[in-house]
């Protein structure tokens, strides 16, 4: 299907349309389910009333102050993780190369722990500074006549392993109360988000989305090998630097809202590629999958009584089997 406006024409595959329709439907139903369930179950009409300012004070507080901000934060953070994951995986031509490969997550964990050990607070700024510094250092160290994907992965692994050891060490230096608090933060949680978080993540996404959509075009050519991409007129190194910077910024946003949720960035890209098909990078589909996985995980986390489990536990428990299934299917089809 080709969409023609006055001076642009856009090729849209029927499959992509169907996929986005199905994903949107899924997202919508999950959103409604998530808002309505909890300690205080609410019917759909009550929710609409609460949003429209016609419900009792309690119901309004539950919907507007607790559930909606948390759910919208989850969706936004998941989308950011999904986008960043797909960008890195396409750029580095490796399904394993999610942003944590270049050390962002390890840097963020180390930064958060260092902030706790040194100042007793400031987890979030510590995590952001740690993650961004690590990503910058890894990119700079991997730069040698341009940014080569394989070198970026290797340097990233080196930095990650060192930082993980450092984080383990800091964990052993904490007192036991702080340690158990940090264990929760380190896996990523969406407990008690407010509208400030929602504004942060959605504002950031709105700013980055045009850039990501534009990057989709060079990314689809970047998936081929370096020689072909260069002969198609791509300036590889500046492009890779742009993608890395954008991806890292997205991850930083998402981490600052939801903590380092494992697996979301890792699985969104491969699932999206698989359902969209055609070997395209599928950034938008990946963002939607990321949002779906995160929201599902957080909804599950909310549905567990007594212990407040962090959402990250469930993103991992959903993500890992999905990834394994994906591996099995792809191997069977011989596409890997």
């Amino acid at each position, binding site marked *: 299907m080709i969409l023609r406006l006055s001076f642009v024409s856009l090729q849209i595959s029927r499959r992509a349309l169907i996929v986005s329709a199905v994903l949107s439907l899924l997202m919508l139903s999950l959103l409604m389910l998530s808002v309505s369930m909890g300690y205080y179950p609410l019917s759909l009409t009550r929710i609409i009333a609460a949003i429209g300012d016609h419900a009792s004070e309690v119901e309004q507080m539950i919907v507007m102050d607790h559930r909606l901000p948390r759910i919208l934060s989850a969706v936004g953070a998941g989308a950011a993780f999904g986008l960043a994951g797909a960008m890195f995986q396409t750029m580095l031509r490796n*399904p*394993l190369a999610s942003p944590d490969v270049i050390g962002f997550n390890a840097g963020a964990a180390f930064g958060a722990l260092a902030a706790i050990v040194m100042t007793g607070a400031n987890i979030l700024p510590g995590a952001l500074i740690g993650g961004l510094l690590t990503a910058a250092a890894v990119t700079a*160290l*991997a730069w*040698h006549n341009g940014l*080569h994907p*394989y*070198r970026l*992965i*290797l*340097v990233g*692994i*080196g*930095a990650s*392993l*060192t*930082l*993980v*050891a*450092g984080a*383990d*060490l800091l*964990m*052993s230096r904490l007192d*036991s109360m702080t*340690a*158990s608090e940090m*264990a*929760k933060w*380190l*896996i990523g949680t969406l407990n008690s988000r407010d509208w400030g978080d929602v504004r942060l993540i959605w504002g950031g996404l709105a700013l980055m989305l045009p850039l990501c959509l534009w990057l989709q075009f060079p990314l689809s050519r970047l998936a081929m090998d370096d020689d072909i991409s260069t002969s198609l007129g791509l300036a590889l190194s500046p492009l890779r630097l742009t993608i890395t910077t954008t991806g890292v910024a997205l991850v930083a946003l998402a981490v600052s809202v939801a903590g380092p949720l*494992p*697996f979301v960035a*890792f699985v969104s890209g491969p699932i999206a590629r698989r359902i969209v098909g055609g070997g395209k990078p599928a950034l938008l589909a990946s963002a939607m999958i990321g949002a779906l996985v995160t929201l599902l995980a957080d909804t599950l986390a909310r549905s567990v009584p007594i*212990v407040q*489990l*962090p959402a*990250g*536990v469930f993103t*991992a*428990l959903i*993500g*890992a*089997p999905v*990834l*394994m299934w994906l*591996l*099995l299917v792809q*191997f069977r089809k011989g596409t*890997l």
Partner: protein
Amino acid sequence: MDTDMGSNSPSVPSERPGTDPRGLWFCLSVLGLVILAGLSLRFGLRPTGWDQILAALTDYDRMNPDQIVIRAIRLPRLAGAILAGASLGVAGALMQGMTRNPLADPGLFGVNAGAALGVVVCIMFLGQTDPASFIWVALGGALVASLLVFLLGGGGQANPARLVLAGAAVSALFLALSRTALIVSHQALEVYRFWVLGGFNGVDFATINTLLPFFAVGFVIAIFAAITLNALMLGEDTARSLGVRVGSAQLVIGLAIVILCGATVAMAGPIAFVGLIVPHLARWRAGPDMRWMMLYSASFGAILMISADLAGRLPLFGGNMQAGVMSAMIGGPALIWLVRRNGVSKL
């Protein structure tokens, strides 16, 4: 990896070790190992003289405090470091040779994550908190995880890329399970966060004796595997035409990797990096011949591990930094340096 790669090619007759630079370098590395071992016996919180070390080794006086420290603490610690370093180095070389992937690391087989989950489960459900009781659960967890990786990775007709991917997926799943357990159980977190640093502080001869058969089996398989790997390195089709049963060879090699790494994790906790970095260092002197690679990986691995253990005793690191942390601190920058120095194609 270096300019005299040509002279290290298999065309050099390895039957005459006297004229082979690889033999000379190997002897030098063993010499280095012995010197480091001596330093490791001598230095620590309680400095001892060389005469005491000699006496402790040859004519042990059970009443002399210096000799007790050497015999009861430093000697098992040294033996543990040598065994762990050598097995991680050999396992890394086996894995990188088998998967023909320079990034392959025994940790990627799910061994570390499996062992960690085993330990966490043991603390949570059996109430064990003494690291000495972790040996069997760690070994069991490592076995389960790597079996899962092997099955997901395609069993007999394992494809290298598939193995690595399956390993990453299984590791991540096991890690997530342990983290969940750690959030639920405070007691598990309290023990786990010290165990996970990895080190030889608590290693004694009883532990080493329990695990020695595993190490021995692993090393013996590795020696035989080296010959098969030389053929496998040429590609699976070529290996097949040379009469290698690729599937069963990979199964046996995989088993050796699991045994070596599982025993190491059981003894000293998860130690990152040695398995990844040592084969790269070994290739620098050993060239492509896997038989030499095994020898060099064992000696370089042991050297790296003793150095990490020794460096952790420096006052700079508070006198007792775990070897697992030290090896990561040395290994990370070393990997980055290797990548930058050699360029990508060589790694």
